[in-house]
């Protein structure tokens, strides 16, 4: 029984939740397992070889927030992009285009749904990885971590929305993911501190917005970061606002959806 009172977009938001919840084994359990594998392998290989934050933090502990944030980001992207492309390919996108939903309502319903998916997977990864380092539960700045998780998932959900609307076929979406999202995520410092990089790559990392999301999120766990969390917050919030404005303008023009 589906009972959602209020505005139409609330139902769309709820449908987006149901969509991934009905296949939660694939949308939640699978990414949690993947992250766990990353942790097992990388921490086993690198624990004794890599020193981060001048040796103040164990590598495994350092890695966990990175993996949590990576799961949040990847799953937020996956939710909007897969929902949109599936609806477009099967044609059932018409069900959300016919009702009187405004561009902003469409945007918030899809983005919020994807944020919930990202945060749910992130929490799942965090819960499982705590077993490796229970001390992480006493994070010194939980609000900082929450702020970056929310903003990061919103950014990736928005990117997923753009990619899902842009792509006409599944392989185009896969290209967007493999050539833009994955490289930016992997080169953002999930697995390493950028201070361990040669100067050129360190400088280049500063142009990657994903770096600030991960670095700011990690600050919430250790009170330590590669750049000031305020700078990261400013950059991440700026990216989020800019992407939101661009996407709303695209939806307003009916780009691809209402030709």
């Amino acid at each position, binding site marked *: 029984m589906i*009972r959602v009172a209020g505005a139409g977009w609330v139902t769309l938001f709820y449908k987006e939740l*149901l969509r991934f919840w009905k296949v939660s084994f694939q949308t939640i359990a699978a990414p949690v397992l993947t992250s766990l594998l990353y942790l097992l392998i990388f921490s086993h290989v690198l624990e004794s070889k890599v020193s981060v934050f001048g040796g103040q933090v164990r590598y495994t502990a350092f890695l966990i927030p990175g993996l949590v944030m990576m799961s949040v980001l990847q799953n937020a992207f996956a939710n909007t992009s897969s929902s949109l492309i599936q609806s477009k390919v*099967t044609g059932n996108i*018409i069900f959300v*285009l*016919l*009702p*009187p939903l405004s561009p902003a309502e469409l945007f918030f319903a899809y983005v919020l749904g994807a944020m919930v998916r990202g945060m749910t997977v992130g929490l799942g990864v965090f819960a499982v990885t705590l077993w490796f380092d229970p001390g992480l539960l006493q994070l010194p700045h939980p609000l900082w971590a929450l702020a970056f998780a929310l903003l990061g998932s919103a950014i990736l959900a928005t990117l997923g929305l753009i990619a899902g609307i842009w792509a006409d076929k599944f392989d185009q979406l896969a290209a967007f993911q493999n050539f833009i999202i994955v490289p930016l995520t992997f080169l953002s410092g999930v697995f390493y501190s950028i201070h361990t990089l040669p100067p050129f790559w360190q400088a280049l990392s500063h142009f990657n917005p994903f770096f600030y999301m991960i670095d700011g999120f990690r600050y919430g766990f250790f009170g330590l970061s590669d750049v000031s969390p305020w700078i990261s917050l400013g950059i991440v919030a700026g990216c989020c606002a800019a992407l939101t404005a661009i996407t709303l303008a695209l939806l307003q023009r009916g780009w691809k959806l*209402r030709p």
Partner: protein
Amino acid sequence: MTPAVDVARIARRFGRVQALDDVSLAVGQGEFFGLLGPNGAGKTTLISILAGLVRPDRGSARIMGHDVVADYRLARRALGMVPQELVFDPFFTVRETLELQAGYFGLAGNDAWIDEILHHLALTTKADANMRSLSGGMKRRVLVGQALVHKPPVIVLDEPTAGVDVELRQNLWAFIRKLNQDGHTIILTTHYLEEAEALCGRIAMLKAGRIVALDSTRNLLSRFAGITVRLVAPAVPAAWLPRVLRREGSVHFLGLERHAELESLLAALREEKIEIAELALQEADLEQVFLRIMSGERATAAEAVTP
């Protein structure tokens, strides 16, 4: 009274194809209106513009007086649309599909109405079945149900009976007719001319993005009441070639204005020593009208545009 649908000088181009070219028409409240035309004539583009799925390059469209672009919320609330493709969301059951669709319109707790829809569409026993498990005809009925969840005064059906078996087609017709009797305005696009003839009070025929005929079904039938001659013969007299509507091998369909013309046709055949294998007369039906208009009887067609 405000027209249910008011289309004013709509034009739309897709790349090099002029899908709609200066189309205007008005459909009154309570009408049962047919939109006919061959594939690519612009029917689906026109109703997509009414539903806000496609934007016009020029011109405007109103549903119950609400502009589909400027005043889209009220326009969409007033319109229910059954798409041509058999689309569905495989994640949900029939009931969930209808509840979600109602929810998108901001409606909750209208279970009584949803039960009624399910009943009328003979879907009650399938209410909790997943959409994936339904036959094509059932999926089509769910699409009709989705178009009705918000009780729209105007209902647009884009080829609703395409690929639906005969029995179900009769049921759907009966249901749509009942909706019309209850006061809904119905706009139907169809390939089945007998369907349009049986149901529609008024008809617009589209060809290459333009309206080539717009009149009541009765007027169209009487205006083109001319008789069609089905002639099986090796050839047609030279003077009669312009009157050939259609040709399938040695079977020729010729249009006559009056029965009296038959005499001169027979005379011409005798004169040119053409042997008649078979000859039959066919009364006008919408198919004949359609063929005549589409084969380009320009003068008559132009006359038909002025109501």
